[in-house]
Structure formats: C-alpha cells, structure tokens
C-alpha cells in the first residue's frame, strides 16, 4: 500500500486522469506490419512467415466462425494479414467511463456484424457503451425498439460511444426484461458493455419541479460521465445552470467566454447545485464544459427566467 497523503493523492489522480483523457493519435493505435528494413533477414523472414501464418489462421478461424453464424463467406481473405489493423479501445477504456456506482448487466462483449445480446432487466439508470471499427454504420437498440443508439460511420479510432437511459425514461423500460440487439454489416467489429445503476438512483433528481415557475430551458437535461460539453447556448440574459453529481470526484463547470467557473468539490453524497451566470457581455454563443473525474456521474440543465416586468 502506498504511503501517500490525500492532497497528493487527489492531485496525482487528477493528473493521471488528464493524461488518460487525451486521445491518442490514430497512428499510435494502429500497426502496419513491417515489409522491409530487416536486419537479420533470414530470421525475420521466418518470423514474418510465422506471423503471417498466425494472423491468416486467425482471420480464417474468424471468417469460418462468421460463416457458421451467417451462412455467408468470411469477411476477409485468409491469404495475408491486413495492412493496417484498425483498433477498438481495450476493455479498460470501454468501461472506464462508467460510474463506480453501477454494476454490469452485460459484460464486455465483442463481436462482428449483427448480434443479439443477453436479456436483462433494467433497474436503474442504464449506461450503454460501445465502440466499433470497420466500414459502415452500427445500431445498438432494444428488440422492442424503445431505446437505441446508432453511429453512422465506425471510425475505428478508438472512440467510445455511450448513451444513457434515465430512470424516468418514457416509455418505461424498467422492471421488464430488455434485449439489446446490434445491427451492423458483417465487416463491422464492435465491443459493447451495459451497466445499471441499480434500483436506487445515484443522482439527485433534477426534475422540472426543482426549477422556478416560468423557467425556460435553453439547454435540455444532459447526462454525462467524466468530462463533456453541453449544447451551445445563446443567452439573452442571465442564465441558470442546475446540476447534480455523484461519484468520487469534483465537478468543474466553465464557460467558453471565461465568465463562469463553478466547482463542486465533493459529489460523494449526491450534490445538487444551481448557479447563475451574469448576462454575457457579448451576444455570441457560449459553450459550457463540465469537467469531472471519469467515474463521476452528473446531469445538468440550463434555463433562463423571464425578465421582471417593469
């Protein structure tokens, strides 16, 4: 166990979270098999042949597996390895953004093409995270089409997509078995995981009743885990940011024009805050960024109040 004081512990954690939040360049997460510049030519040729054989065998097995499922031809020829391997994020990246208060209802699952995931019963806030690689779209949706999320083009750059189904989602899906289905072309590989917050909502409710009468919502309720941006707003006067958070870290909300910066140091017990920003000096758009630890869950809504009648 490391002997480390809490202040340094917090700062180090924040520092590493910042590093881990940086997206690697595509060239860092892909690998092109070498074709030249061999120093020990004979040995390397043997190694390359072995490597090619291993990859070809892998591709062959994978293709055969797919053919068994789909009754179609394998997606890639088994004669040579692909020139560039397109990557999915590793498991730790896919699930790293999930709040610590959740439990997995579908553990990390990897596949290609269309698939049916195991049925589960949602109890709380549902977090669906997935990543895909290959050419084409992917659609992750329930078989009853009540919830779903789609990506028009899989980049293969390690982007993790996520969607959240809140407790008050309508039509109601909670307490009833739910089956998720993935629809994608056979060349699209994917990873998916689903987590559930459990029956007790980990976030304080930011329902409409918590806002003053006449409040005009300018940025709808947004859920997030870790650092993310809210929708752009064009404030016409003072605007109010109402947010709740839960998790192990702090939440820091800042505006692109530098006019606001609010920090809630401790979200552990589920904090609710409402902050008001002064009327902006310029009429331009404002973007609000919510910075939070990867395992801190938050929701935020921005509203304006009608001007007082003179």
């Amino acid at each position, binding site marked *: 166990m*490391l*002997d*480390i004081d809490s*202040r*340094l512990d917090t*700062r*180090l954690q*924040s*520092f*590493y979270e*910042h*590093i881990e*939040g*940086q997206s*690697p*360049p595509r*060239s*860092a*997460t*892909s*690998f092109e*098999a*070498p074709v030249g510049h061999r120093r020990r030519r004979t040995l*390397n040729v043997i*190694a*390359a042949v*072995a*490597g090619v054989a*291993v*990859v070809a*065998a*892998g591709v062959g*097995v*994978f293709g055969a597996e797919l053919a068994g*499922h*789909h009754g179609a031809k394998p997606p890639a020829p088994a004669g040579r*390895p*692909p020139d560039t391997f397109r*990557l*999915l994020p*590793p*498991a*730790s*990246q896919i699930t790293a953004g999930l709040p610590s208060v959740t439990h997995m209802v579908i*553990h*990390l*699952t990897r*596949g290609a093409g*269309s*698939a*049916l*995931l*195991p049925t589960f019963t949602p109890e709380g806030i549902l977090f669906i995270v997935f990543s895909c690689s290959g050419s084409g779209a992917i659609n992750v949706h329930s078989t009853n089409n009540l919830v779903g999320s789609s990506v028009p083009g899989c980049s293969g750059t*390690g982007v993790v997509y996520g969607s959240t189904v809140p407790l008050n989602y309508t039509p109601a899906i909670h307490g009833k078995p739910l089956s998720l*289905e993935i629809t994608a072309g056979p060349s699209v590989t994917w990873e998916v995981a689903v987590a559930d917050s459990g029956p007790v909502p980990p976030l304080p409710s930011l329902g409409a009743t918590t806002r003053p009468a006449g409040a005009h919502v300018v940025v709808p309720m947004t859920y997030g885990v870790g*650092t993310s941006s809210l929708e752009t707003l064009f404030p016409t006067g003072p605007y109010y940011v109402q947010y709740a958070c839960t998790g192990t870290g702090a939440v820091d909300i800042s505006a*692109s024009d530098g006019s606001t910066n609010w920090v809630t140091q401790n979200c552990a017990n589920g904090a609710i805050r409402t902050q008001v920003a002064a009327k902006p000096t310029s009429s331009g758009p404002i*973007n609000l*960024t919510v*910075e939070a630890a990867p395992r801190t869950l938050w929701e935020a809504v921005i509203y304006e109040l009608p001007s007082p009648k003179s």
Partner: protein
Amino acid sequence: MIAAVSAISPSGALPDRAFEAVAVPDARRLYTLALSILRDEGEAEDAVQETLLKAWRSWDSVSGMEKPAAWLTRVCVNHCISRRRTLRSRGWPPLTLYEDATSATLGRPGVDTIDMERAYRRLSLKQRAAITLNYRHGYSVDECAAFMGCRPGTVRTHVARGLATLRKELGDA
C-alpha cells in the same frame, strides 16, 4: 440473421490469440502508459510502435504465453525507461506547448494539473514508471519489478523518492 455472441472472459484472455486480436488492441493502453512515463506524445507513439513491432517479430513465442499483455507492458516500460539519453539530447518538450492547451475548451487542465506536470517532469523516467505502474495501474511491487527489470526494493525506492520529489516540488513537504 442474428447470432448470439459470447462475452470475453473476465481475465481478458481471448480465445483467438492471433496478433490482431491480442497485441494490437492493447495499443491504447500502452500509449497511455508510455505517455504517463515519457510525457511526450511523439515518444509515446514511438514506444507503442516499437513494442508492437517487437511483438510482431516475436509473435511465435509471445502468442504462446499465458499473459501476452504482461509481456507487452514489460517491453513498453523498458523502452520508455531506456529513452532517457535520447530525450535529454533533444531537450524536454517545452512546457509552453502544454500551457497553450489550457485555452482549449475540452480536456482543459486546471492549475493543479499544470503544477503537477511541472513537478512530475522533475522525476526520473524510472520513478515515473514505478509510480505509474504501482500507484495508477495498481500493480504490486513485485509485478512492477518484473516489468522494469529490477528488484522490488529498487521499485520501492523509486516510488518513495518520486513521491518525495513531488511533495517537495508542490510545496507539500
């Protein structure tokens, strides 16, 4: 037609041990690890590519290992901590570049992070590796020693001295 799929085992072991399925998906994890140690994106990228290249060339033996990910980690860490001479000859990446990034909307580091960055750069690469592996990634001292190619006592020393330097640089000592 829809096919049922099976989950990856909790240990992370994949049934298909081909290079594409085992080594390459680890690239992002390796990149983060290398970036934590080197604090230079280009050098981190090089470290990952060198690691994957070594894995590719040694795939015959690596593919038969029980934990290829551990082998990849060891190669990557060793590559990082042997980069001292190259980095010193090129000079550390200028901090101003990092500070410029504070104007970006996303991923903006706070003042604390910048202070920590300055302090962290005072650490040796071995101290960074030891703290990153032990503190951040949760590897035991023995595992860190295996990754770094040194004795467990040396890892403890690197961690203790690294943390002491951080406290001093941050004014917490």
